[in-house]
């Protein structure tokens, strides 16, 4: 695990939160903050007889990409589905607080090098949103993270990485949407309402949650890339995510924020127009939308490798 180079070749999808945290920043630069030695586990789970984890399913820390201090939040899907409770949420907020303090400090100490030393918050999502065992505290933590994202605007980028087993759903689905840049692999899934709930609302004939292929067409990386909800689609290795982050951080801040899909009146107008288009188009399946945006042979899209797909994909 400590061998960074072999970590880079590892599948992002199968990697643990800690492996991802270490592997998405430059070699040997990651320092975990509020790590397991602090024993900051949830105070709410023991009373319910639910197992605890010392990092509460959220690995936080700092690393470097080039000269950029990168504050990392990495969620662990194997621990209660990566769900967000009080401690987990506070760790997310803490990463933003530190990034902002770092931003202020660099502005003061290295005013000429702000661009090359610009900090960032990177979130490697693997979560279904609120943790039911401490649902109210988890919900309030979500609101704080949204507040922190807005607070970072105009200062430093916030970047989402989505390619882990659980995907990114529930309240964390709109947290991801609110960040500046979204990087996904084709194994990543992003949405608000989980497939089981859609099935419950619409019936199995309309949406069969056991049809994983359908779930991927609706929420998967390739679909989100076509919709421009994901800005970049990368191969499923830690190294590919790391390289993409490096490329993003090399760009000027003004360029990076062009990746946003929401967060201004103009973008809201654009999204509202898309919502109206959805009424006109009335798609039965995401494939209809792909075809609408000019993709040929939409049945083959799920089968394509990432490289094949990127070579032919027509985006919104």
């Amino acid at each position, binding site marked *: 695990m400590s061998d960074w180079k072999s970590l880079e070749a590892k599948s992002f999808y199968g990697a643990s939160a800690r492996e991802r945290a270490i592997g998405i920043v430059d070699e040997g630069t990651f320092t975990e903050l509020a790590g397991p030695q602090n024993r900051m586990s949830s105070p709410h789970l023991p009373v319910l007889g639910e197992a605890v984890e010392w990092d509460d399913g959220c690995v936080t820390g700092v690393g470097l990409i080039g000269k950029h201090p990168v504050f990392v939040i990495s969620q662990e899907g194997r621990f209660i589905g990566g769900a967000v409770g009080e401690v987990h949420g506070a760790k997310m907020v803490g990463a933003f607080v530190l990034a902002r303090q770092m931003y202020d400090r660099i502005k003061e100490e290295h005013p000429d090098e702000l661009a090359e030393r610009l900090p960032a918050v990177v979130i490697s999502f693997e979560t279904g949103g609120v943790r039911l065992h401490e649902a109210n505290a988890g919900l309030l933590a979500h609101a704080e993270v949204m507040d922190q994202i807005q607070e970072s605007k105009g200062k430093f980028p916030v970047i989402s990485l989505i390619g882990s087993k659980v995907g990114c759903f529930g309240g964390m689905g709109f947290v991801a949407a609110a960040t500046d840049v979204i990087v996904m692999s084709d194994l990543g899934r992003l949405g608000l309402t989980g497939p089981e709930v859609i099935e419950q609302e619409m019936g199995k004939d309309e949406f069969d949650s056991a049809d*994983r292929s359908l779930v991927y067409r609706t929420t998967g990386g390739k679909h989100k890339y076509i919709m421009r909800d994901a800005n970049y689609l990368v191969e499923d290795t830690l190294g590919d995510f790391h390289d993409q982050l490096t490329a993003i951080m090399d760009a000027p801040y003004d360029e990076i924020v062009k990746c946003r899909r929401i967060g201004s009146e103009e973008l809201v107008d654009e999204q509202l127009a898309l919502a109206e288009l959805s009424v006109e188009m009335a798609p039965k399946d995401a494939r209809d939308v792909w075809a609408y945006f000019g993709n040929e042979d939409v049945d083959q899209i799920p*089968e394509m490798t990432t490289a094949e797909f990127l070579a032919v994909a027509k985006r919104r």
Partner: protein
Amino acid sequence: MTTEPKIWNTLERDYRERLEAARPYVMDGKVVEAGDTVKLLEAVVRPGDKVNIEGDNQKQADFLAQCLCEVDTDKVHDLHMVQSVLSIPAHLDIFDKGIAKKVDFSFSGPQAGRLAEYVRDGKIELGAIHTYLELYGRYFVDLTPRVALCVGVSADKNGNIYTGFNTEDTPVIAEAVKFRQGIVIVQVNEIVDEVPRVDIPGDWVDFVIQAPRPFYIEPLFTRDPALITDSQILRAMMVIKGIYGEYGIQRLNHGIGFDTAAIELLLPTYGEELGLKGKICSYFVTNPHPTLIPAIESGWVKSMHCFGGEAGMAEYVQARSDVFFIGPDGSMRSNRDFAQTAGHYALDLFIGGTLQIDKYGNSSTATASRIAGFGGAPNMGCDAKGRRHATPGWMKCGEEYGMHDELVGDLPRGKRLVVQLQETFREKMAPGFVDKLDAVALAENAGLDLPPVMIYSDDLTHVVTEEGIAYLHKCTSMADRMAAIRAVAGFTEVGMAEDPAETASLRERGIFKTPADLGIDVRRANRDLLAAKSVKDLVNWSGGLYNPPAKFRNW
């Protein structure tokens, strides 16, 4: 003295009468409209008939089963069902409705809980629970169905049937029924002008019906490599090195499950590393497990005959005709009967998982409240006494057999390897080794004559757990066997009774080997060893020929 001349063709006369009754519903050739199916069944099925609904752990004649549920109980009742499985709800609905009253079967799977309830409530009179071969055998003795409701992919109007690569049980049923002047009805996905190949000849078939939906088929043998655990990988390493390698096992059957999937995915990595390619695992009789694709692609497998097909594997299998049994039309033919026979006589080893092993080494998948039956595992998991050809693995196991001298004297005889893979504890700490099998409680609860034992202790040669391998066949007494079982039983109650001195002596005698004894580095037992880590990897190994069902597609 004059007597009435004895009539010797009552069966044939009865058959003619039934055909006549069905005449109004027959269209062109042997074709009956789907909408007339219930009326057809009312015309040809008589009260008290033995009836077979085709189905196994994979394909189901589900439309015909559904139609049988809808017959008028005044016309059709008290049927004696004689069939491989009770696995879809309709199979039990016919008892609920009073259409059938007795059953002889082999496997019940998802309906096991309901079956136990019906037996207890007297809704079902239980004949016996069989193994597949045993039941097929009885089709030709005392359980010949009068009417068979079968299933195929396509038919022509003359009744020639194409089963695709899921031929499975159809030939054995059709043969038994037709050659006792019974009625064979087949549901197909489509009626065509010409079938791609004739799996069941038209003159064995009385009626064909194009069902409104394609028949149901369960992707039973697909295991997602993403769900394979480190402990399964450890057991797989032990099997490859300590059994396949040790005995040079060339001909074998892999049972269903993640444990065997792990072995399959370790052949191209760990097996290759041990230099075993070509020395083990060349001939399989197994379903086309998708997890075998990397081993096949790496050139491990010379030949493979299948019990049935597996959803999504048709194209791949077709493109590997050197490995699989392929018809003149280019698609695979499976046959459960022949595969089971091969399991008995032509294979050196069976390996599979189980739920419980008792302190003597008997194993069962039964639980106290479910009558699940057997399927084919007991056919595979036994030492068929009729075998007479020698292979190195079979001979070595025979030489090592601790009871040989007592039972055979000084003549050489081989022994088939029957291996059980077992996790000492499953999820939620359910123990894999128990003092008494739940099967015993089930037999009492359900009033069975015999506790449903999957594999008896005297057939079992090896047990593999994460603790190590027990080479049970080397034991010279039951006391010995029980000690060896305690040694592999870990921290279960059975295992906690272990005497360390006794275990040490078993290790010296080579009856119990730990991973360390086998020279296996436990640290390497992790997912990095898998040749494919996801279903997508399997598709990539297959060059895109494997087309997994939607529920397995992570993309």
